[in-house]
């Protein structure tokens, strides 16, 4: 359950379904928007993670 990737996918899924139901009525447009949002969030997250991979992680952040 605490896999970063799984949680990211779950978050993208919840938001994509929500905005699809909120913004589109036509089934074809719904599928299109859902795929754009879902793949955009998951793909964008993976892309940013890949770009940040070479950077050192540094010390852990202090507790707020």
């Amino acid at each position, binding site marked *: *359950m*605490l896999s*970063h990737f799984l*949680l990211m996918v*779950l*978050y993208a899924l*919840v*938001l994509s*379904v*929500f905005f699809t*139901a*909120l913004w589109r*009525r036509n089934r074809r447009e719904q599928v299109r928007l859902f795929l754009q949002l879902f793949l955009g969030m998951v793909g964008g997250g993976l892309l940013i993670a890949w770009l940040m991979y070479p950077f050192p992680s540094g010390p852990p952040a202090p*507790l*707020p």
Partner: protein
Amino acid sequence: MAEPARQEGQARERPERVSALPGWVASIAAWVLPGLGHLLLGRRGRASLFFLLVLAAVGIGYALEGKLYTPVPGRPLTVLATLGAMGMGLPYFLLRFTAGYTGDVAAPGFEYGTAFLLSAGLMNLLLVLDAWDIASGRKE
């Protein structure tokens, strides 16, 4: 010629009301319980879906022990975050005052849980606006 154009402009600005339910009633209902505003407006399918989605986000955030924002003196951004989280309506007050929940900063899923809880509040605020638009005839 100018008169019909003016009337057309007025019609565009002030759409005909399609619901007997006042916009403010639909909006308050939508805020109190996610999906309730849409249910009262006769959108049963969307009401059920929105209810499940917002409650799912709250449930996941709670399970991950994310932060349920409360105002912190001297930190004005926490006021905004609290208002955002309070957007989820009744679940916020049940979690905060009935269950005494605040979140656990040491929990492994704290950051994700915080994102889920805050998103639940913001999603429901969008539903409040959507209910207003439907009640006032601006949207189907």
